[in-house]
């Protein structure tokens, strides 16, 4: 696959300009860049979702025009998305049959699935139902589904964000086998350590242009990060400290009962977050994080008021506004549609949570002038790339919106801050900025709860770490007294094994 001089313009911005890229057969090629550097746009053009304005693509030496994902698949290009598209209530074989098409009998297809899986180390039982599978297993189904069409180029967008460290190792084994079989891989990730371990070549994008290429095996994560940013940055660092004083957030025997299918219920979770402490909760996606966060933020209050206490005051049954009045701020996992209202501008999105905490409404009237000033301050403090306070939230790239939301919540100098995935999809420079802002807030005496799937991040920030698995929480441990391996085992549900390793 070769790209030459690719250009794509959107109203107001140039997403890609003069991008050229060669992927050799069997090569694992990393695509690096900050948020908004144009990685997703480029990949969407290769997969036929978007059409380039200029430039040419060639495939196995012939010039091609890919005008739909179907055309891409016909050529032999497959893509594994960050978000899975599987039917929960069907079996693995049925899901794959829907994608492959044709009238191959299910039993025969199941055999082929098992064979392909065995060949690349993707053990998966084709007869199991998808809703029984772990996230890592679901990803395997997605990959097998792509492999059934025998692709020659597989595009993977942030594939490890949902995996435990052990599952990541298994995935890398599979990807290396694919590479040996001659299949090329285009690999997008923000985790530079992984790229170093896996990839043969990296192309670095900045502002829509190619600014460099390197062999990741001879670079360090830091040097690659600096190439992406085009400058150096200060990485956050903190020595873990044991908790002191009375818990600001005290959770005791918290249970949830959503009654929704496919929701993970929280079972008897207890922990405390103390003033000046950064407390981390690890866990693979779908371990109950969403339910725990909604219960803690007040979006889904629980029946027992005493299950959640802020500064000793029972708040379990209070709504989100009442908890914010007690000094809580919250950065949710979903940015668009929950953390921000997509069609509203940044000024109004500042009012969304600051109407009382920052007095952006005096009485019943909005104070737009104050809100605009606040939005300007957030944009400047966090380096948000946006047209200004008048930009619609939906017009920001994911990472920039994340910076804006984190900045908005930190700007309220909350007594207690709950952050979900603080740097998900955010580049190294912006991540360092967000990390430093969080640590400064903790230094000033706020209690901070971080829920993240990124273990490196948790070990970098947190004083104590616990693991959420199927709605249960492991015993919190001082970050200096555990390690990535042990937390990784707990993320897979092996609480006891991890305890033994500890003993």
């Amino acid at each position, binding site marked *: 696959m070769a790209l030459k001089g690719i250009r794509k313009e959107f109203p107001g911005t140039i997403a890609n300009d003069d991008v050229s890229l060669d992927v050799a057969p069997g090569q694992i090629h990393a695509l690096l860049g900050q948020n908004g550097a144009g990685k997703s746009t480029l990949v969407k053009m290769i997969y036929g979702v978007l059409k380039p304005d200029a430039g040419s693509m060639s495939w196995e030496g012939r010039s091609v*025009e890919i*005008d739909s994902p*179907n055309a891409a698949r*016909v*050529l032999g290009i497959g893509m594994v998305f960050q978000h899975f598209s599987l039917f929960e209530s069907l079996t693995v074989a049925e899901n794959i049959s829907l994608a492959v098409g044709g009238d191959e009998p299910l039993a025969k297809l199941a055999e082929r699935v098992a064979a392909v899986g065995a060949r690349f180390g993707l053990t998966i039982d084709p007869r199991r139902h998808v809703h029984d599978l772990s996230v890592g297993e679901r990803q395997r189904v997605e990959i097998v589904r792509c492999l059934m069409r025998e692709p020659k180029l597989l595009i993977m967008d942030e594939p490890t964000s949902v995996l435990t460290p052990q599952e990541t190792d298994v995935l890398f084994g599979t990807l290396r086998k694919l590479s040996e079989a001659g299949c090329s891989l285009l690999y997008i990730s923000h985790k530079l350590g992984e790229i170093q371990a896996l990839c043969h070549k990296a192309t670095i994008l900045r502002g829509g242009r190619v600014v460099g290429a390197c062999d990741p095996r001879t670079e360090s994560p830091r040097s690659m990060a600096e190439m992406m940013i085009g400058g150096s940055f200060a990485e956050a660092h903190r020595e873990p400290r044991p908790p002191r004083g009375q818990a600001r957030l005290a959770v005791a025997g918290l249970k949830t009962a959503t009654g929704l299918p496919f929701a993970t219920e929280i079972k008897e979770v207890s922990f405390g977050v103390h003033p000046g402490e950064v407390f981390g909760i690890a866990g693979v996606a779908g371990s109950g994080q969403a339910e725990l966060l909604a219960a803690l933020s007040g979006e889904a209050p629980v029946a027992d008021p005493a299950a959640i206490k802020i500064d000793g005051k029972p708040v379990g049954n209070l709504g989100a506004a*009442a908890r914010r009045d007690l000094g809580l701020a919250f950065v949710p996992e979903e940015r668009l549609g929950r953390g921000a*209202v*997509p069609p509203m501008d940044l000024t109004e999105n500042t009012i969304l949570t600051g109407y009382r905490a920052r007095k952006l409404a005096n009485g*019943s*009237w909005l104070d737009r002038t104050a809100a605009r000033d606040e939005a300007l301050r957030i944009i400047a403090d966090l380096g948000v790339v946006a047209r200004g306070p008048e930009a619609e939230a939906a017009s920001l790239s994911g990472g920039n919106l994340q910076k804006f939301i984190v900045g908005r919540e930190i700007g309220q100098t909350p007594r207690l801050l709950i952050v979900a995935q603080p740097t998900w999809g955010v580049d190294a420079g912006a991540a360092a900025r967000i990390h430093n802002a969080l640590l400064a807030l903790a230094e000033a005496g706020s209690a901070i709860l971080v829920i993240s799937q990124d273990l490196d991040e948790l070990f970098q920030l947190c004083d104590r770490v616990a693991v959420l698995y199927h709605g249960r929480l492991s015993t919190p441990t001082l970050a200096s007294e555990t390690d990535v391996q042990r937390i990784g085992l707990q993320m897979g549900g092996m609480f006891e094994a991890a305890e033994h390793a500890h003993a």
Partner: protein
Amino acid sequence: MLRLEPRREPSAAMVYGAPVLAIALTLIAGSLLFAALGHNPAKALRVFFVEPLSSAYGLAELCLKATPLALCAIGLAIGFRAGVWNIGAEGQLVVGAIAGGGAALLFPNGGSAWLVVLAGIAGALGGLAWAGVPAWLRTRFNANEILTSLMLTYVAGLLLQYLVIGPWKDPMGFNFPQSKTFHRDLMLPKLIEGQRLNAGAVIALLAIIGGWIMLSRSLLGFQVRVIGLAPAAGIYAGFVPRRMVWFTLLLSGALAGLAGAFEVTGPIGQLLPSISPGYGFTAIIVAFLGRLHPIGILAASLLIALTYLGGEAAQIMLRLPIAATGVFQGMLLFFLLACDVLIRYRIRFGTLGRKGALS
């Protein structure tokens, strides 16, 4: 096979241009309709849309008819912005007319010119109570307010018929199904001598300005917009969707009730079996034609009022049936919705393409 494919970026200009385009298409389709009926389209359109505006009487009538439309539509639009679909403004208007008319009938000999204010308040409370039923059903049982508010409209119509045929019938009325006429003190003051236009129009204008200020400047209006655009963000910010259901339904009910009271204490002057040519339903068209924006609603209510006047003129001068009004209103809504769809989607012919990609 025909299918709709989402456009990547709907044109911002077209979002506001759609109502203009819809009006133009309505006029074209209307011309074809007139031609098919054997009328000169130019002349017929003139009778329908121009002549009603050529006299002081016509202009006053236009504002008179726009009043209930604007009052109902501004309330509905605030609800629609919050994602609350009150379809029963017609019923709330009728109950407002019953409550306002009932209050007026309590004072057959008048007493003070301020009594009309009492009738107005009674009307607003009546509409508010009628809209409270779907609000309660929605928040208590999660019953869909579209169905409940619509069904209650028919209940309201039957209640009015029962009252004017039964207990509230004018004993001196030669057995006609109608109430006594109200005392002068219970009639809205006229704005212009010799015309039917009354103080209700001023209240409607104030309601529109009030709605505008509320939506754009107040925290309450902000909550309405956030809940409508992104309910999860509303809950995240600590707003309570249940409260918004109550607020928007009660507000739109009260405004529709006020419109009903203004009809019976204004141009009608008594209770009749039918007191509205469907203002409450037509207000839905007004709200969407005005893009759910107060200023748009002001313009749309005047335009739709013109279709009522034009329909009457066409009835007299062209001998067209009264249904012509409904046909024009229906075409307008149809074209508006069609334009909206085509702004967001494009039509593609053929099945999912499996064309070759090599060039």
